[in-house]
């Protein structure tokens, strides 16, 4: 009898141990407090684009489009009317919009990103079907290319990435392909981490898609709980050599250079002087509520976009800074946004805090000859303008 009871207690204790125990990793910043700044970002200009009655600021996706005759368009997506708007970047005037239907055979229900190769070749991303749609400025659908393999594969999400297009991680055009960074939204099962590839590469001559680049096992392996997409998004930009991608993982102080031909990774330091250790969640994924995930993201530093500035030969890496003592229910938008500046060899030059997420739509950032453009969120409720603030580097 006693033996039987002791087995029951043993089982209960084992169960509670198994439920509460979760391996945690802390990714330390080896250069915290050791880096010397020589430059900072300084606001030098702003551009205000007047919006029509059915357009709001903070568009889900924006892209600069350079025409053959040297004109620069600032384009953005209006989800409400499924249109891409074209503004002259220099004169700030609205020029045209292209609208696609949402319903029917030719409809695009989940338009969330695009790349304008030319006005005859506009690559649209339909999130609802995870496919690329090739269209033109007359909104005629020319082709549809699936990014999730066979239509019959119900477990496609275990084999193919999902995408959250943003201006800071756009479709990257090379000589013969369009590169599009995706991510694995949940915790990556250990069984697939070596095989799951997050970069889609569309050959625009053949319209065939291949996938490359896996998550570094040292960061995302061992079933660490990096819950949800906060820490799983992959930000990338093309290296000036043209044969490498620079990858920025939110949880790593390093940057990963991946050779586009061989898939080989090279690691370089690309961190902040102020970022601390970044920890995985000390709880099992199923036991972590959404509020806990958000709070964890708020209390940890989180790297995001990497942008190369060919005009000044520097890199900008965005950092959503930790609020270590943030009380429960602190919102993600309260996090300060910093921009780290590195030279073309990834040597640290400095970093500047521009404000909070709630005031800066950092996802809508891109580089022009004037500087780094970042969308500023006006407090004005009329939502009449889309405002870009332009930053450039200044010696301290």
């Amino acid at each position: 009898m006693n033996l039987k009871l002791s087995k029951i207690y043993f089982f209960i204790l084992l169960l509670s141990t198994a439920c509460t125990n979760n391996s945690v990793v802390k990714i330390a910043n080896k250069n915290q407090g050791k880096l010397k700044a020589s430059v900072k970002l300084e606001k030098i200009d702003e551009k205000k684009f007047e919006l029509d009655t059915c357009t709001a600021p903070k568009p889900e996706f924006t892209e600069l489009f350079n025409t053959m005759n040297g004109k620069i368009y600032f384009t953005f997506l209006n989800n409400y009317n499924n249109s891409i708007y074209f503004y002259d970047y220099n004169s700030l005037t609205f020029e045209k919009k292209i609208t696609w239907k949402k319903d029917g055979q030719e409809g695009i229900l989940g338009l969330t990103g695009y790349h304008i190769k030319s006005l005859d070749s506009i690559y649209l991303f339909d999130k609802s079907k995870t496919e690329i749609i090739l269209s033109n400025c007359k909104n005629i659908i020319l082709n549809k290319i699936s990014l999730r393999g066979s239509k019959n594969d119900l477990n496609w999400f275990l084999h193919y990435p999902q995408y959250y297009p943003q201006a800071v991680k756009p479709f990257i055009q090379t000589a013969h392909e369009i590169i599009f960074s995706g991510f694995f939204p949940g915790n990556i099962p250990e069984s697939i981490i070596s095989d799951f590839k997050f970069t889609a590469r569309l050959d625009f001559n053949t319209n065939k898609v291949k996938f490359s680049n896996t998550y570094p096992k040292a960061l995302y392996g061992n079933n660490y709980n990096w819950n949800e997409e906060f820490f799983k998004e992959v930000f990338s930009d093309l290296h000036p050599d043209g044969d490498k991608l620079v990858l920025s993982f939110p949880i790593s102080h390093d940057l990963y250079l991946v050779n586009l031909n061989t898939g080989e990774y090279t690691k370089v330091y690309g961190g902040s002087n102020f970022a601390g250790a970044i920890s995985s969640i000390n709880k099992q994924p199923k036991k972590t509520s959404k509020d806990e995930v958000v709070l964890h993201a708020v209390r940890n530093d989180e790297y995001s976009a990497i942008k190369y500035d060919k005009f000044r030969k520097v890199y900008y890496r965005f950092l959503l800074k930790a609020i270590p003592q943030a009380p429960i229910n602190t919102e993600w938008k309260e996090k300060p946004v910093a921009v780290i500046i590195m030279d073309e060899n990834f040597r640290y030059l400095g970093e500047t805090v521009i404000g909070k997420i709630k005031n800066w739509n950092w996802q809508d950032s891109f580089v022009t000859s004037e500087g780094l453009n970042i969308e500023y969120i006006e407090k004005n409720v009329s939502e009449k303008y889309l405002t870009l603030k332009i930053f450039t580097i200044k010696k301290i």
Partner: protein
Amino acid sequence: MKRVFKPKVMIMQGSGVLNKKTKKNPTKFIKYVHIFALVIVALLVGSCKKNVQDTETDNLTTSLSKIQVEKQVKWIVVLPGLGCHGCIQEGEAFMKKHIQNKNIFFVLTKISSLKILQQKIGAQIEDCPNVYVDYDDLFNVHTDNSIYPCIARIEDGKVIEHEFQSPKNGAAFYNLRSLLLAQK
């Protein structure tokens, strides 16, 4: 995954002091250990967080007490601007049709764009006294349901019951429409 369990630290083994007692009256001691263990198990099970429904009711009631709502209001509809897309569309369609109904009070929270919402519902928010724009995120229920539109029935400023329009509960607005029709 690390396993830290070691049979050596099992409750049944006890400390040296308890072992003396065991020698004196082993049956009584084992009985106490059983009771103690059951209490611990009961505490572990019983110490769970407040249930989700109660947390939501409490949060809604607290939020409601911070704003001015007319006495005639019987229903609160909390419409998030970000979250379950299809569920929010249902809410927007409902709002468009019932914005003139003074028995319903609409709360717009996590607003993505007021300008676009006004286009969708075909009304200017400033002309609608039964609409509250929740810039301070007061009406966040702080559960995983915060991404869904919420319908709450209120009496004397207190939340009596509430439900969410979600993929699992796709008829919440349909049910409210039916109730409103029946009351006419």
